[in-house]
């Protein structure tokens, strides 16, 4: 534990140095201390996952009236692994990125606090400790969104949405946990876990429902996701990366920790609810990702998509565990956990790359980008690999985890309970549906953003970003490749984490080695061999291409139907790229399209100008949340009449109270 505390202390030191040092020092020093702390935490998490030890810490001196309790078990360590790895990248990236408002004392300090809380949340082992870290995490990220608020109106409204929803979510979590403490006689997780069985089933389900509400909102599960596509894009990019990769994972962590560990699994219905949330989120997120034109918004929606898949895994694991299928449950949990880490890396890298693009070109609107591969080749490489991982290109990390998920779902069909089977089926369908949609989204993101010709002067003038930013992005590519090519290396760690999550001592169906082999189901993938084959064929193709022609390629104008003029504005844009799919799913997306045609004065057969506008708003936000807010405001305005300024009325309040007291009490 001492090492972990040292890691946390390094992050605190980073925060303090950010607050205290002069401008030119505070960025590198805080980044150095912060990344060192994250590396240390990574090491601790690794050692816990390898040895399976559990370390604890309690101090009554921190947090008045309660004390701080930290416990790091393999489940927590797995999540620390994810957040510390991304934390290193975010800190390093910040060296090159932090300028202007992001280099201010407040922002840098908050950034380091945010990193700190991401390491601490999975370790918190009492209700108060968890809520403290959790709220601090929410607060620091909330304020970081506002870093450059004076120039970004969207950041302001995003922060409002995020703040309101995260606070409501935290309230739900708190209430759920407190309901569990009511008969536990203490607020440590150990007490909660020991007394969970004594809770009445209704109260247990009530507690889980509340906790699910809170954590799934943080995870971005539909329909509680509304804040996410607003907040993640508006944050500074290292913060977006942390939010989307690690903070979202904390939501998943919470569901697993409370549902599986503290409440010991509960009933099948809980997990069916979790999986259904996952199904809806995966589909909704993927669909919106395909139609988004803001690069970071696209990434945010894709986060919702992946979280959906993770929740399907978690839900399947819980349901199977409750149905007695422990081995398959283990498999599904493994898949979910692997996907969490894989997602943390590739989504982190993508958000950092999006930040690089924004920094270089001044915009993140795909409709204004293009041709960046020429000016930013390294960033482009990072995006290709990470996008490949998210599209589940075999031999990259997304594929390994999705394959595991499919294995878990496929063998879950042996369960006797019909609702579980239906959920498995929906899970498989969601997996299938999102695969294609994700591919569209990321082909669009890379193809429109990096290929072709620049669509704006900003994109034309882009230059590669500083080395520290490139290094940070490169760091996050490592897991995508490693988990993709030799996923088996992580199996022992995964087994520990999944076993600690599900609280069952079942031998893992996954064999050890560099490949993923589920021996008892006859399933396997051998990505390393696949890589060898692919490279060999590509070399052969290269020889065929170069070797036979023996010439450098000649540059010619592209085919334009015989016309000479071919301007960048004639290219397909992100909007037009997604238009066919938008039409297909118009019933879900409800796009708003305006066409305005102005005819020339002389004849209405000729058009002077034509304006076409296309917007895709979140239909859940527009139809679900907005009316609710409007109603609340109406109530608030109506309530103002209570205090109408008349002293007679004010006195009458008291008089009535007095009479009531006399009648009731006297």
């Amino acid at each position: 534990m001492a090492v972990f505390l040292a890691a946390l202390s390094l992050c605190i030191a980073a925060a303090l140095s950010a607050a205290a040092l002069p401008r030119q020092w505070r960025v590198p020093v805080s980044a150095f201390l912060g990344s060192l702390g994250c590396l240390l935490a990574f090491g601790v998490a690794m050692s816990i996952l390898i040895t399976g030890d559990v370390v604890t810490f309690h101090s009554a001196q921190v947090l008045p009236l309660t004390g701080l309790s930290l416990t790091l078990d393999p489940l927590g360590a797995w999540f620390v692994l994810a957040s510390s790895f991304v934390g290193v990248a975010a800190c390093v990236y910040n060296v090159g990125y932090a300028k202007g408002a992001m280099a201010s004392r407040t922002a840098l300090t908050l950034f380091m606090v945010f990193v700190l809380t991401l390491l601490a949340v999975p370790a918190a082992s009492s209700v108060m400790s968890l809520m403290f870290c959790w709220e601090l995490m929410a607060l620091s990220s909330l304020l970081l969104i506002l870093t450059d608020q004076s120039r970004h109106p969207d950041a302001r409204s995003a922060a409002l949405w995020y703040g309101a929803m995260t606070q409501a979510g935290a309230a739900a979590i708190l209430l759920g946990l407190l309901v569990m403490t009511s008969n536990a006689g203490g607020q440590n997780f150990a007490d909660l876990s020991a007394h969970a069985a004594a809770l009445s089933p209704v109260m247990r389900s009530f507690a889980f429902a509340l906790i699910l509400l809170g954590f799934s909102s943080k995870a971005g599960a539909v329909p509680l996701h509304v804040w996410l596509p607003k907040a993640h894009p508006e944050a500074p990019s290292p913060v977006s990366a942390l939010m989307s990769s690690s903070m979202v994972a904390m939501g998943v962590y919470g569901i697993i920790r409370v549902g599986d560990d503290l409440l010991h699994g509960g009933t099948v219905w809980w997990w069916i609810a979790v999986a259904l949330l996952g199904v809806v989120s995966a589909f909704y997120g993927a669909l919106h990702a395909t139609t988004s034109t803001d690069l970071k918004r696209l990434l945010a929606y894709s986060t919702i998509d992946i979280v959906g898949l993770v929740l399907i895994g978690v839900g399947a694991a819980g349901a199977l565990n409750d149905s007695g299928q422990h081995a398959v449950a283990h498999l599904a949990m493994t898949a979910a956990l692997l996907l969490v880490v894989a997602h943390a890396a590739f989504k982190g890298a993508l958000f950092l790359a999006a930040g690089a693009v924004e920094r270089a070109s001044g915009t993140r609107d795909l409709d204004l980008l293009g041709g960046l591969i020429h000016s930013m080749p390294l960033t482009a490489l990072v995006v290709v690999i990470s996008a490949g991982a998210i599209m589940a290109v075999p031999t990259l990390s997304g594929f390994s985890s999705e394959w595991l998920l499919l294995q878990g779902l496929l063998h879950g069909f042996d369960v006797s309970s019909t609702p579980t089977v239906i959920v498995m089926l929906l899970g498989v369908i969601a997996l299938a549906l999102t695969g294609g949609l994700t591919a569209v989204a990321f082909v669009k993101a890379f193809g429109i953003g990096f290929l072709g010709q620049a669509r704006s002067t900003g994109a034309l003038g882009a230059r590669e970003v500083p080395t520290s930013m490139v290094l940070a992005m490169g760091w996050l590519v490592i897991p995508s490749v490693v988990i993709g090519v030799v996923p088996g290396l992580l199996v022992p760690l995964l087994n520990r984490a999944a076993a600690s999550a599900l609280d069952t001592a079942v031998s893992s169906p996954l064999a050890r080695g560099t490949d993923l082999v589920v021996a008892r189901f006859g399933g396997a993938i051998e990505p390393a061999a696949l890589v060898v084959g692919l490279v060999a064929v590509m070399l052969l193709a290269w020889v065929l291409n170069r070797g036979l022609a023996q010439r450098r390629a000649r540059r010619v104008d592209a085919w334009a139907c015989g016309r000479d003029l071919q301007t960048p504005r004639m290219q397909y844009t992100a909007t037009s790229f997604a238009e066919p799919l938008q039409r297909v799913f118009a019933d879900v997306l409800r796009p708003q399209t305006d066409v305005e045609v102005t005819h020339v004065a002389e004849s209405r057969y000729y058009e002077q100008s034509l304006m076409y506008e296309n917007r895709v708003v979140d239909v859940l936000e527009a139809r679900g949340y907005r009316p609710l807010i409007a109603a609340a405001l109406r109530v608030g305005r109506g309530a103002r009449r209570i205090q109408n300024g008349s002293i007679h009325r004010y006195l009458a309040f008291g008089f009535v109270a007095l009479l009531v007291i006399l009648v009731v009490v006297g």
Partner: protein
Amino acid sequence: MNATYISALELAAGAVLLSAVMTLWRRSVRSIVSMLSLQGISLSAVAIVLALHEHEHALLVTGCLVFVVKGLVVPALLRRVSRLDPRSRESRPLVNVPASLVFAAVLIVLAYVVGTRITALSATSATHLAPLGLATVLVGYFMLVTRRRAVSKIVGLILVDNGIALVTFLLTSGVPLIVELGSSLDVLLVVVVLQFLMVSMRHHSDTDRLTEMKALHD
């Protein structure tokens, strides 16, 4: 001796409540203030009668204090205030006079019902009269709620205070002297403060806004 004591006590305590009801009835500020003066004097009479009966010197001092403060000073202050107010009539109260009186009757019944529960603890001839004080409190509060004029508000406040003082005398033969001194002084000061406020406001803005001060609201 005892019978005289009881009837004197009853008379004085009854006068307190009666004057409270009278203030509700009358509209002219001048006569309301007179009623208040009467009430103060009756109140001090209660204290003095009790003091003589129970040989409580402290209560005797209190009685004299009450006589000075509530019987003389406060009414005098109020008269000064009411001279400032040209339209010194409670012209249209929120609840009209007949209804007020009916309501006052209801309040008195309520006070009686509640009061008997309290006096059950120690049944003496003095504590039996405590409901009268409670009724005065309620009537005073009712006046406070329903009367619009600033002076009426002050009167209502004093009625509440007098009612409480009556309860105090009857139930406990007065609280410790220091508390009693403090509370009397407080009442006095409140009246002074209110008077000061009325004067200042009149200075400050010509129109008589006191009746409908609703500038501050949500």
